[in-house]
C-alpha cells in the first residue's frame, strides 16, 4: 500500500537554524554573543565590480617591462615629515593584548620588509613593535592606555581613532582572559578584569574640540608627525569633511567588514556600512573641499587581494589598509591547526572567538605556550610575500588599464555587476552607462 505523501520538513528562512541557535544560546547564558573579526554577512563588495581593461580607446602598458609605480606619501598637508611608502597598503591598528607579542613583531617586520607601515592599537606601543617597524603609526584612542609623550614622539605618525568599521560608536573590549600581567601593566588595570574602554575620547567632544586637540598633539611633536583620523563607515561624507575641517593630514575610513579583537556580534553585523558604499562619498567630500590627494584617504574593511586594492584606488582612495588579511597571512586560522579548532567547537576558517585567548595559531592570544607557535621572522616573510603579491596584482590591473601609477586608476576603469554595487560605488552597471541615482536619468 502506498504511503500517504506528506509535506517534507521545511526550514524557516526567518527562524533559521542559526537564528534559533542564537535564541537558545542567549536564553541559556543571558549575555550577548561576543566575537572577533568583521561582519560575516553577504554584502555588496569589490567582487561586484570589474575592470574594463584597455581596448581601442585605452592603451595598455606592457605587463612585465613598463613601469607602474606604487609609491604613496601620506601626510602631505601639514606634517613636516610625511610618511613615504613603497606600496599603497598599510597594516591596520591592532593592539598588543588583542594580539600576542610575536604576532605584533611579525607584523612590524613584514611591513618593513615590504616598505610600508604598521600601526599600534589600544594598549600602547611595545618595544618589539617599535624596534621592528621602520614606520610605525601610533594610535591615539579614547582609553589612552600607555599613552605618553615619549612614544608619541617615537611614532612616525599619529592616528586619532574616532571609530572603526566593526563597531562605529563602540569602544574597546578585551576580556579578562587576555589581561595578563604585562597587558594589565601597560594599561594600568588590574590583572584579569574585563577591559571595556570608552567609546568617546575623554577630553574632546566634537570636531571643534578635535581641531584644538590636534593642535596640542602637533605642538608636542614639533609639527613633524602626520595626523590621521580614523572613522568607521557610518556617515562617510560628513565624517570625512569634518575630519578635514579638524585638521587631519590623512583620513582612514574603515568599512563594516573591518575586524575587531572583540565586540558584540549584534554590533558587528548590524551597525555601519560596507566599505563599497563609503568610498565615493568620502572622495566626494574631499573633492568638494578641494582636498582630494591633498588629504590622503586610506580605506579598509575586507581588503583581500590586489584586485580589491586596485578597485579601492580606482574609486579614489590613496591607499588601503589590511588587518584580518594580514593576520591570515601570518598564520591565523591556518587549517593545520584544524583538530584544535575542532576541539574549540569550530573550524579554522570560521574561528572568531579571538576574545577567549585560546587561538591555536598563537596570534590572538596571550597564552605563552600558544604564542610560541608564531615565529616572527618566518611569519614576517609570509606577510612580505603576501603584500608583494597584492601589489603585483594591483600593478597587473593598472597596466592593463593603461596606467603607469596605481593612483591613475579611476572610476571610468570600472563597471558594476549588480544594481546594488552600481548604486553604492556610483559605477555604471555593466553594459550600460547608468547607475541608480545618476543625474540626468
Amino acid at each position: 500500500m502506498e504511503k500517504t505523501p506528506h509535506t517534507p520538513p521545511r526550514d524557516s528562512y526567518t527562524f533559521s537554524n542559526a537564528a534559533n541557535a542564537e535564541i537558545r544560546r542567549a536564553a541559556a547564558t543571558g549575555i550577548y554573543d561576543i566575537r572577533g573579526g568583521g561582519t560575516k554577512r553577504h554584502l555588496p563588495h569589490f567582487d561586484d565590480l570589474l575592470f574594463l581593461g584597455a581596448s581601442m580607446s585605452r592603451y595598455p602598458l606592457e605587463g612585465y617591462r613598463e613601469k607602474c609605480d606604487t609609491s604613496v606619501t601620506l601626510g602631505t598637508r601639514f606634517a613636516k615629515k610625511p610618511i613615504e611608502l613603497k606600496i599603497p597598503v598599510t597594516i591596520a591598528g591592532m593592539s598588543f593584548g588583542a594580539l600576542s607579542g610575536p604576532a605584533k613583531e611579525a607584523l612590524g617586520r613584514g611591513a618593513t620588509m615590504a616598505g610600508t607601515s604598521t600601526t599600534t592599537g589600544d594598549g600602547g606601543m611595545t618595544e618589539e613593535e617599535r624596534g621592528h617597524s621602520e614606520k610605525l603609526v601610533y594610535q591615539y584612542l579614547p582609553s589612552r592606555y600607555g599613552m605618553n609623550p615619549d612614544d608619541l614622539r617615537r611614532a612616525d605618525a599619529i592616528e586619532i581613532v574616532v571609530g572603526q568599521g566593526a563597531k562605529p560608536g563602540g569602544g574597546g573590549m578585551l576580556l579578562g582572559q587576555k589581561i595578563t600581567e604585562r597587558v594589565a601593566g601597560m594599561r594600568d588595570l588590574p590583572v584579569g578584569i574585563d577591559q571595556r574602554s570608552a567609546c568617546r575620547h575623554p577630553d574632546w567632544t566634537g570636531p571643534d574640540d578635535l581641531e584644538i586637540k590636534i593642535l596640542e598633539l602637533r605642538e608636542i611633536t614639533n609639527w613633524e608627525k602626520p595626523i590621521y583620523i580614523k572613522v568607521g563607515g557610518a556617515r562617510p561624507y560628513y565624517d570625512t569633511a569634518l575630519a578635514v575641517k579638524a585638521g587631519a593630514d590623512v583620513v582612514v575610513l574603515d568599512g563594516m567588514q573591518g575586524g575587531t579583537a572583540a565586540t558584540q556580534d549584534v554590533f558587528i553585523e548590524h551597525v555601519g556600512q560596507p566599505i563599497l558604499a563609503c568610498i565615493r562619498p568620502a572622495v566626494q567630500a574631499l573633492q568638494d573641499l578641494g582636498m582630494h590627494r591633498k588629504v590622503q584617504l586610506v580605506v579598509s574593511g575586507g581588503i583581500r587581494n590586489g584586485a580589491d586594492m586596485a578597485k579601492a584606488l580606482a574609486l579614489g582612495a590613496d591607499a588601503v589598509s589590511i588587518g584580518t588579511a594580514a593576520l591570515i597571512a601570518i598564520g591565523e586560522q591556518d587549517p593545520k591547526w584544524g583538530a584544535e579548532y575542532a576541539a574549540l567547537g569550530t573550524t579554522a576558517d570560521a574561528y572568531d572567538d579571538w576574545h577567549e585567548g585560546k587561538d591555536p595559531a598563537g596570534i590572538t592570544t596571550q597564552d605563552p605556550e600558544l604564542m610560541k607557535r608564531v615565529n616572527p621572522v618566518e611569519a614576517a616573510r609570509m606577510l612580505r610575500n603576501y603584500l608583494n603579491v597584492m601589489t603585483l596584482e594591483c600593478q597587473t590591473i593598472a597596466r592593463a588599464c593603461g596606467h603607469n601609477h596605481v593612483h591613475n586608476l579611476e572610476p571610468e576603469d570600472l563597471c558594476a555587476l549588480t544594481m546594488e554595487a552600481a548604486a553604492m560605488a556610483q559605477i555604471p552597471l555593466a553594459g550600460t552607462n547608468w547607475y541608480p541615482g545618476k543625474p540626468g536619468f
Partner: protein
Amino acid sequence: MTTTLDLATTELREVNTTLQAAAKGKANEDFELTNPRGAHAVAVGLDGPISVTINGSTGYYCAGMNKEATITVKGSTGPGVAENMMSGVVTIEGDASQYAGATGHGGLLNIKGNASSRCGISMKGIDIVVHGNIGHMCAFMAQKGNLVVLGDAGDALGDSLYEARLFVRGSVKSLGADCVEKELRPEHIEILKDLLEKAGADAKPEEFKRYGSSRKLYNFNIDHAGEY
C-alpha cells in the same frame, strides 16, 4: 633669572619650542608667560625640570602631557588642563574647566578653585587636589591615583571606577555605577596628609570620606547588567 615670553607678540609655536628646548636641556630655568588670553596648548609636552608661570587664563590643554616641569597658571584654565600628565606639578590659581587631569599618569595637579565636569576622567596614576568643588561625572573610569576634593562633588562621582582613590570633604550629590563609600584607614590618612601638605590645602585628613570601586563590574555578570 626668569625669561619672559609674551604670547601677544610671540607665536605659540615659538613659545612652546623655547620651553620644550629648555626642558629638554634639564637646565632648571624659570619662565614667565604673559598675555595668554585663552590661548590653547600653552606649555605642552615639557619634558624636564623647568618652571613656568603663566600670568593669565589659558584655553584648552594647557600643560598637556607634562613631564617633570612645574607649571603655575595665575588664572583659570580651559578644558583638559594637564591632560595625560606624566609627572611634575601643575597649579591652577583659579578654576579649571572640564576634563582637568584627564588620563594623567603621574604628578600633582593642584586646582585652587573649582573644577568642572569629568575632572580626573580615566586618570591613570595622577594625584589631583581640588580646593573647591567638582562637577558631574568626575573620575569616570578612573584607573589609578588619588582625587582629593575639599568642597562638594557633583553627580555620578567615580562612575565605572577602577582602582583610583577618591576623597571628598564635602557632600557628594550622587555616586556613579560601582562607586561606593569605603573605610578611611590609616594608610589613607597618610596619603591625604601628604597630598594636602603638597597642595597647601587647609584641611584635615580626618574630615574626608573615601570612595572607591566595589569591583562588581570588573567582570561581566548578568546579574549586574542593570548597572551598565
